[in-house]
């Protein structure tokens, strides 16, 4: 082909893409909320859950008529599971879409990258599931809907030492995931403080599919239980392989286990294992059951913990907005005004929003009753679930 034609082909492809991308109706909704997460990349499944959970909450609100007649428009951005992309995504949501609040991110590393930007621009951010204590320390505009690594790690340690009365526990953590590393650390501290001993500690990488070498090494020390604070994506396989190797000790875990897929992948191997969660599927709470049904109808699968937390995060924003509209309609009206050029007014309105979010009292979330402490972390109990005969059952509730 002639040189010009050769350049024309990729150029044409690019132009076509741009044309398609640029098209689309331009809606003028006045309240925009940004949702950012990993829609692609290695943790895409959790980004999807975040979007689904938040979407459910906002759609419910809009179907009921919105707030003061205004509907909420949510804009989602992908960060490709990368920290630097999270910062760019949030910057775009704030500057281009003029969002009044942000929901995200799942992973603490990406929340840590985005939080300073939200803070310096005065946009309240609620992370559904980032458990690293550093995240909310970035500023008073940063909140989270979940409990901290510290609390959750200690919950299982307490359960293992006091309720199950185990003396020897091994740990198998995900070194690539700060949530897993954090849980393992706090579990270890608390468990040893209660007189237990950690008889072995191994690690794997998020995304690995074979854990036999680590399990073989742990088996040699004869643990009574193995603490596996990872995501369900690996835990199911770990359980299977453990049983194949002849390890009969039960597994213990955290809310990363929560998913439809867990029992599918893990099967019988998970019987007798325990994990901590925000809610129990068999808890007779009407709003909880309604959430499950609605989620399943809309998205075709059961929600995981992250979807539940995102739903609560979104509803925290909704609740604050409702209170704002009732108590301070002028600020409520000023919320979207930076699009019309009144940046200062919008910022002041968002500051009011932040105060209202911060001041929430006993918000009835489906993942627990939420009140923020002085670090904007919710104080709520954890629930321990036992897997018995292929079914998950409520075993205990542990308060902070």
């Amino acid at each position, binding site marked *: 082909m002639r040189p010009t034609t050769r350049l024309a082909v990729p150029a044409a492809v690019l132009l076509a*893409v*741009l044309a398609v991308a640029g098209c689309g109706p331009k809606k003028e909704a006045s309240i925009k909320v940004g949702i950012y997460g990993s829609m692609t990349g290695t943790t895409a499944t959790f980004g999807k859950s975040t979007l689904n959970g938040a979407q459910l909450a906002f759609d419910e609100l809009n179907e009921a008529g919105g707030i003061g007649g205004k509907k909420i428009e949510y804009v989602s951005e*992908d960060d490709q599971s990368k920290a630097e*992309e999270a910062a760019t995504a949030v910057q775009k949501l704030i500057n281009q879409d003029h969002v009044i609040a942000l929901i995200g991110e799942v992973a603490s590393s990406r929340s840590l990258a985005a939080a300073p930007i939200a803070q310096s621009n005065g946009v309240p951010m609620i992370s559904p599931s980032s458990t690293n204590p550093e995240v909310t320390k970035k500023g008073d505009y940063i909140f989270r809907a979940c409990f901290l690594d510290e609390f959750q790690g200690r919950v299982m340690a307490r359960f293992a030492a006091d309720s199950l009365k185990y003396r020897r526990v091994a740990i198998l953590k995900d*070194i*690539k995931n*700060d949530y897993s590393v954090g849980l393992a650390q706090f579990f270890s501290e608390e468990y040893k403080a209660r007189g237990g001993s950690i008889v072995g500690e191994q690690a794997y990488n998020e995304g690995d599919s074979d854990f036999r070498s680590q399990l073989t090494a742990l088996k040699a020390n004869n643990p009574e239980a193995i603490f596996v604070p990872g995501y369900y994506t690996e835990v199911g396989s770990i359980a299977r392989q453990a049983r194949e190797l002849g390890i009969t000790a039960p597994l213990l875990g955290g809310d990363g286990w929560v998913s439809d897929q867990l029992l599918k992948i893990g099967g019988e191997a998970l019987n007798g294992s325990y994990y901590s969660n925000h809610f129990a599927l068999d808890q007779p709470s009407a709003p909880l059951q309604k959430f499950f049904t609605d989620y399943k109808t809309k998205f075709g699968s059961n929600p995981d913990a992250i979807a539940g937390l995102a739903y609560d995060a979104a509803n925290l924003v909704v609740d604050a907005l409702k209170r704002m509209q009732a108590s301070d309609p002028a600020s409520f009206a000023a919320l979207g005004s930076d699009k019309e050029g009144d940046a200062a007014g919008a910022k002041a309105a968002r500051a009011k929003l932040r105060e209202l979010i911060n001041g929430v009292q006993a918000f009835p979330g489906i993942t627990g009753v939420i009140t923020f402490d002085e670090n904007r972390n919710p104080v709520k109990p954890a629930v321990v679930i036992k897997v018995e005969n292929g079914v998950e059952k409520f075993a205990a509730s542990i308060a902070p």
Partner: protein
Amino acid sequence: MARALKTALILGVLVLVNWLLPILIPNSYYFRVIMLCGINIILAVSLNLVNGFTGQFSIGHAGFMAIGAYTSAVLTMRAFPGAIAALTGAGVPDVVAHGAALLVATILGGSLAALAGLAVGLPSLRLRGDYLAIVTLGFGEIIRVVILNVDAIGGARGLSGVPGYTNVFWVLLGVVAVVSVSYNLLHSTHGRAMLAIREDEVAAEALGVPTTRYKVTAFVVSAFFAGVAGALYAHFDSYLNPSSFTFLRSIEIIAMIVLGGMGSVSGAILAAIALTLLPEVLRPVKEYRMVIYATLLIVLMITRPSGIMGTRELSLRWPWGRKASA
């Protein structure tokens, strides 16, 4: 005398741009994208030294970037605050004190990266082309895994709270530095030697060109600038995580120089800008973003493998025309 004047002039222009740009572009999102373009330009042009000029195939650039990033961050966070406080206490304006800290940290970070480049380059440049590619990829991965395991610099949690000293001046200074080094190198004896190695290594060796020495030099200089880019990046995002330095990142940089034409400095610059903007432009179709990116890469390789510029450069004399390089 003329050289000093020229340097002063360039620095003056950079200071002016640094002051002017935030005023002209108040949108932080656009500003962020521009800064990222700058950092990617430094990465692309520095990689071009090895892959483009010397014809060696290195896929470990992200590893050197990581070394520069983490080293400089640890310095400004742990070692320098005392010195900075002393300076500001003595009346030096904040910008200057922070800038000085950044400069020192960046140079040290780049130097450590260069040292790593030496350590990697010396033994492996004996290897054949494709093997070198895998060894450099391996090195990048080893760096990443090591950082992941060192808790003192954050590990999987990452390192947050890096002071945000990077501004337009420093990024542009980095760009000017890497471009002028590349350009001067290219038009020197060393440059000709490198090009000779690229064209036919055996012939060059037979003609008495000390190939290993030049290959290692290119490697070390390129690693230095990768470290510089890493340091600038660290002080821009204020947060570092090993997952930002995977081999996928190295591949993104390679895509830039391939798109621009390996061996062309201006090509690398144009391509770096294009490939930084592309993901932003493709946001509306975000689920398809990576698929489109991959398809474009394949189509580009099939239809125009020499990239936009081939081995030619944009000439100042005739902006729209192209002058062949040496």
